[in-house]
């Protein structure tokens, strides 16, 4: 047993309102500079839709992630051999037009325009070349479109293209995405410079800005397209899980700013020894396999093993309070995004409920349903969700949704002063205690219950003695003043 700790984020898509506050919080702090303007380390996509970069999920096009070949898991696009051959050329990498051409406007014209015979306007100009451009695509171009013949209908997860143009069946929800800080990160494996690493103490995956030489294998290899090339510095950059914040026990900027209160961040413990096996199961078993390597933080044996591996007590305690553990492992309502990419992503999603279906002949009539509608009447097809979150295993999705429905039905009875039918809970593998806890996590849970991030034990990690470091902090480790004293 090789017990390690990992910071994990869970998104409750049932609550997500698609506001993109998270994206701006991230952009303001991390990618608002030359070369990084087109990067959205955190972005939100409308589903069904194309996403950013355009149709990133389509690995027939981008060839990202891993594939299972016999008993081996291999990068889809790169063997060691092809890496050498392709070292100056990334054939499957998204192009600028797949992301978008970043722009600003000639705002100054509104002041400087000389008196003329019509009103001046600010025209768009390229942030790269400074020339006037026309805006043809953006990082969130198909926002809220859903029934779009150009975008949503070509979503690779959608079997039945036309259902999203019928009022009786149309559906839409949102998918926020950050770097998944995977347990089996393709970016790390693909980097010829070994500039990308996974931090031991919290599992955050980082691109070393000193070592990176901009080969961009990581960009191609990441099936989620969450590593970006900074054309100004010539280095790749990506979501850093806000480590300067998490190290000090603050929630990530995207999580902090999540006004839908959909996000949860906490520690999980996993067994790195069992990773290899979990990666080699069949597609439909992937979710279950991934769940199995996540360990019970209350188990004394596991705690001892963790301690032996250097996981501090404060982290073990945090793992017990972790909402991520509860949602992923205990209640099994949170699922990984595209587990079939086999990177073992460390972000998880609670799938969304949706309105009941309707018939639409002369007039629009909703299908008959209970006060809290059943599974079979919901608009978002289970098939679609299973392609996103369980590599096609519909049962896993149904189980998660059933829990949300049972929770609502139980609480409705209580809300109306009626005696709740516990049968509903049992059918969804819940009991009253679990239901009340799940209810609390989804509703009244305070900031500190949603984000249970322990601070980093920096003192263990520093080379220099801590007392010396205390006085020296901030005076520069990388860029010391020239000449010295």
């Amino acid at each position, binding site marked *: 047993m090789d017990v390690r700790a990992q910071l994990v984020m869970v998104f409750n898509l049932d609550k997500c309102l698609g506001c993109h506050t998270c994206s701006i*919080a991230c952009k303001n702090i991390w990618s608002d500079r030359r070369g990084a303007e087109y990067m959205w380390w955190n972005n939100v996509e409308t589903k069904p839709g194309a996403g950013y970069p355009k149709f990133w999920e389509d690995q027939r096009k981008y060839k990202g992630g891993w594939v299972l070949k016999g008993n081996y898991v291999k990068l889809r696009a790169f063997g060691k051999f092809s890496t050498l051959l392709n070292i100056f050329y990334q054939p499957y990498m998204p192009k600028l037009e797949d992301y978008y051409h970043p722009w600003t406007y000639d705002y100054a014209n509104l002041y400087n325009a*000389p008196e003329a015979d019509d009103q001046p*306007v600010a025209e768009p100009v390229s942030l790269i070349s400074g020339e006037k451009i026309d805006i043809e695509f953006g990082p969130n171009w198909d926002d*809220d479109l859903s029934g779009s013949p150009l975008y949503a209908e070509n979503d690779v997860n959608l079997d039945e293209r036309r259902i999203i143009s019928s009022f009786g069946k*149309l559906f839409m929800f*949102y998918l926020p995405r950050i770097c998944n800080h995977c347990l*089996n990160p393709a970016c790390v494996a693909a980097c010829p410079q070994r500039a990308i690493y996974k931090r*031991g103490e919290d599992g955050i995956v980082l691109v070393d800005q000193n070592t990176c030489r901009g080969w961009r294998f990581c960009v191609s290899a990441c099936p989620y397209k969450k590593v970006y090339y900074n054309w100004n510095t010539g280095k790749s950059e990506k979501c850093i899980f806000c480590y300067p914040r998490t190290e000090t026990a603050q929630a990530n900027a995207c999580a*902090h700013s999540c*006004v839908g209160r959909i996000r949860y961040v906490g520690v999980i413990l996993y067994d790195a020894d069992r990773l290899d096996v979990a990666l080699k199961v069949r597609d439909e078993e992937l979710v279950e396999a991934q769940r199995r390597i996540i360990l019970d933080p209350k188990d004394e044996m596991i705690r001892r093993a963790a301690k032996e591996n250097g996981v501090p007590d404060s982290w073990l305690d945090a793992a017990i309070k972790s909402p991520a553990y509860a949602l992923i492992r205990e209640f099994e309502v949170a699922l990984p995004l595209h587990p079939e990419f086999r990177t073992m992503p460390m972000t998880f999603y609670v799938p969304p409920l949706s309105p009941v279906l309707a018939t639409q002949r002369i007039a629009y009539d909703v299908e008959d349903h209970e006060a809290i509608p059943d599974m079979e009447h919901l608009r978002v097809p289970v098939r679609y969700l299973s392609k996103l979150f369980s590599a096609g295993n519909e049962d896993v999705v149904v189980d998660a949704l059933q829990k949300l429905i049972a929770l609502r039905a139980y609480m409705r009875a209580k809300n109306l002063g009626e005696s709740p039918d516990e049968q509903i809970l049992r059918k969804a593998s819940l009991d009253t205690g679990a239901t009340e806890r799940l209810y609390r996590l989804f509703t009244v849970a305070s900031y500190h219950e949603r984000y249970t991030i322990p601070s980093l034990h920096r003192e263990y990690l520093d080379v220099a003695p801590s007392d010396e470091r205390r006085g020296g902090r901030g005076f520069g480790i990388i860029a010391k003043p020239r000449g010295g004293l």
Partner: protein
Amino acid sequence: MSERIKDVFSPELRSWEEFYRNRWQYDKVVRSTHGANCTGSCSWWIYVKDGIVTWELQATDYPSFSPGIPNYEPRGCQRGISASWYLYSPLRPKFPYIRGALLDLWREAKAKYGDPVEAWKSIVENPELRNKYVKKRGMGGFRRADWDEAVEIIAASTLYTIKRYGPDRVIGFTPIPAMSMVSYASGARFLQLLGGVCLSFYDWYCDLPPASPQIWGEQTDVNESADWYNAGFIAIMGSNLNMTRTPDTHYLSEARYRGAKVVVFSPDYSQVSKYADVWVPVEQGHDAAFWMAANHVIMKEFYFEKETPYFLEYAKKYTDMPFLVKLRKDGDVYVPDRFLRASEIEKGEVLENAEWILCVIDDNGEVRIPYGSIGFRWSSIEGKWNLEMKDAVDGEEIDVKLSLMGEETVMVRFYYDEYGESIRGVPAKVVKTKEGEVVVTTVFDLLAAHLGISRGLPGDYPESYDDNKPFTPAWQEKYTKVGRRTVIKIAREWAENGEKTEGRNLAIIGPGLNHWFHNDLNYRAVITALILTGSVGKNGGGLAHYVGQEKVAPVASWAVVAFAQDWVKPPRLQNSPSFYYVHTDQWRYDRCSYIEPVDGDGLPEHTIDYNVKAVRLGWLPFYPQFNENPLKLVEEAQKEGAKSDDEVRKWIVDKLKEGKLKFAIEDPDAEENWPRIWFIWRGNAIGSSPKGHEFFLKHFVGAPNSNVMAREVAKDFVSEVVWRDAPEGKLDLIVDLNFRMDSTAVYSDIVLPAAHWYEKNDIQSTDLHTFINCLGGATSPAWEAKSDWEIFKLIAKKFSELASKHFPKPVKDVIMAPLLHDTPEELTQSDVKDWKLGQCEAIPGKTMPKLIIVERDYANLYKRFITLGPGIKTLGAHGVSWDASDIYEEILNEFPTIEWNGNRYVSLEEDVTVANIILTFAPETNGEISYRGFKNLEKKIGKPLSQIVEPYRSYRITFEDVKAQPKRIITSPVWSGNINDGRTYAPYTLNVEYEIPWRTLSGRQELYLDHPYYLAFYEMLPTFKPKISPRMLDEIEGDEGLILNFITPHGKWSIHSTYYDNLRMLTISRGGQVVWINDEDARTAGINDNDWVEVYNSNGVIVCRAVVSARVPRGMAIMYHAPERTLYIPKSKKTGRRGGVHNSVTRTRLKPILMVGGYAQFSYYFNYWGPTGVNRDTYVVVKKLRR
């Protein structure tokens, strides 16, 4: 796993990590928020690094006040978090800018005349010179200027205008005080000290729901968002919470986990639909048809087929349903008429204001006069204005009856739009009055018959839900396109939930219903469903209308400071819809064929005639008031011998009666009646809100690029106004305070650089939560920017300096003011009688507007501006008042003071003190003040109330407190929600729990509105009228192609126009203005996603990109409100000029019945009552633009 993946602990290899850690480090964090009229009032932490504001994150330290209810953290959205972009953006005015042509003229004139007022006169009195800059508005050509020069032009032009035309030609527009109260107050205080005019916003934006004053006598009072969590059933309509209530939406998703059923009504699959259990794609504008049918089901099944005790008791006690309505004989049948008044029956004679007291019937069939009518509110005998069902004459309990079923049946004629007449049997009774016998029935019986519930009565009643007669589930299908089964199912669930939870039915509602011409009817249909299920005045129930940040929690003290009522009363406050309809000459293009009274005898034909009458009778304000300078008018009266104020008034009334003096509205295009100087701050008056934007550009602003293509058609339909050639460019000067070069700034003459929200101190409130928040200065205003307060101080100072020459002594001004709500003036006009037609005497304050003589001291205006006058010693709001003289004296020792004129006053030089004064004198933030208010109210009510706030008597909030943390307000007599002990705010809980009347005619929630205008238009009962047919609108004439209903809901990437030019928001949207259309509609017009299109009608033209999606229904175009015309807009092929924005294709249309005044809750108050700026009954042609 690949052997290449290793976890790295090594600190040596990781020293580079400092790279991102350094970015996260900062120097300072300051609390502030955004003043953008988004209603969010979110507290933010603003991060400052190297003296630069670098980013913001939401504050998460809201005090938790109600265990078991999710907390407010975090609040803030994608727009708010983009605000820091503005501070250093190239869009920001760093210095004052002046239109180059004007600056040249000014410098020349100044050199020639020396005196600034003379210099201004020489420019504006010379049409050629005036045109040189007026006709170049919006055409570029700005020049950087300095503050001294800019302020001198402003002060000189204002003084000139006062001398030449009068102070009521100086106007100011700034919206939504709640979003930054001190900043609002800056210009408003300056304007009111000089006698200028403040323009309303809430009605103009069409945020005001007229049904709220109609039914409750209340502007708007709604649940804070945390209260949604208490609901058992949430119906959402016309409100896209994800877009507009972003920081509150989590309460919706969380209420679902608590088991609330959620139904979303929206014509498109809107963003909030994802939370629905049921999404109902009701046809836009026709929601009321659905709800009238739902009311039919609810009343039929839950009042008659089964009697629901909770509903019946609620109806008796809290609604006008038991009150008696007279039936008037008309031919063979009866028609519903006025309420029966105490004055009409013998035993009511003894009561004061008996004409304003209504009657019920008791179990013995006897007519009784219960407490609570509005007549008791203003009676000299206090204590009977409450909701006890006791007889006012003998004090006995009344066993009130809701229905006269079992008495005789009379045939009553009902009327339904498009359906026509319907004769239906109604139970009735003959009662004896002083005038003889009259037939009466109850509102309850009338409502049941009107809804089409026969109860076995004869007549044209529908036989079943499938019978296609008003208002059955089958009937509504043709309007809503929603099936009858769905209506029946939802109505039943709604009623069952109301019964089981005792009223925890919540309707979240917004502009999707309120922006239509018949907005009041749309709302009344929904409110009826709430009232029928006993859901108003309950936590988790009622009408939650979220359209604009109208709630200034500390309104009483704020209004004193803002409108300078500490020095002079009353202020000149103007309802913008009337003002702009008239002064931007939109009336000239209006045929008004869509105004169709059912019984129109004696009613005007044209909206402007309705408005003229409303002004003449004192129902609505109108400025400029007269065709003469009000200062000169008083002077003239005095010259002619009028000594006292009464004599001056009489002199003016006589001149009006003789026709020698005219109301300005009677000749709005005459030069002497134009508004002249326009101050705009904190708002985008030209770019964002103007319905009829292109008419604004043409007639008001005078810009040469207006795209108006409409014909002037009103000449033959108007009778009360003078018709003359249409002026172009009425304004002499447009001054804009701004931190963005927005669509208003580019059309202004002077742009003054204003402080950003992170650069000033101010306070904020909202109705979405119960905290007071602050704006706080994180850094000094960048470059030459100044806060609004500082800017108006500068202007006031210069003004007084110049005034010491031009107005060395105080002068008298006469203010014409309308009859006000929440004063005894609401009991003045029980019938419509016009003094001009000889139907009554002309009596100011009774049959016509008030005429109030005040003194203006222009030389001391600045000193008054910066000191707190004694007028704040007694104050109040919503008809509740209290004394604060002792506090006025005490605070002389608490705050900095200034001495002038031999007296010591609190200094208002600093914005922080202004904020503190507002907080000190308000009941919401000072427990002692609240206590005094309740003490006074309990006298009127005749029941103990002060115990409500007794435990909070020493509670007080200061500016420093709210800077440290958002602070919760306390229960106040000015508002209707009880928030003691951590209760969430729900409106009217005080009314329901303490038997405090609503401020209406009956004192109850009014389903029946008996004013003669309502009878004439057949809108006395809640009913349905479809949206206006394009045939009636004169907008699409002979046009072909893709014709769509054009709607402008609030969007995702801006708060009104704010953030529409923000690079962040433009980047994650489509980079400019777009129109959303259905994919099949697009195909028929050959339009692809992202194609350039022209969207036009006779009002103007928009050029934008198309977004194509099946989520939008056919026949509808959505353009999210409100783009800036400054960004990425090409010229129109149709007009050859720059394409416009969303309001380029709309125009102002006013609903006459909303102009009624002097009649209980139909009495004017600023932003409270009056016609609204509706805009959704609009049709456009959408065509591909070939470039």
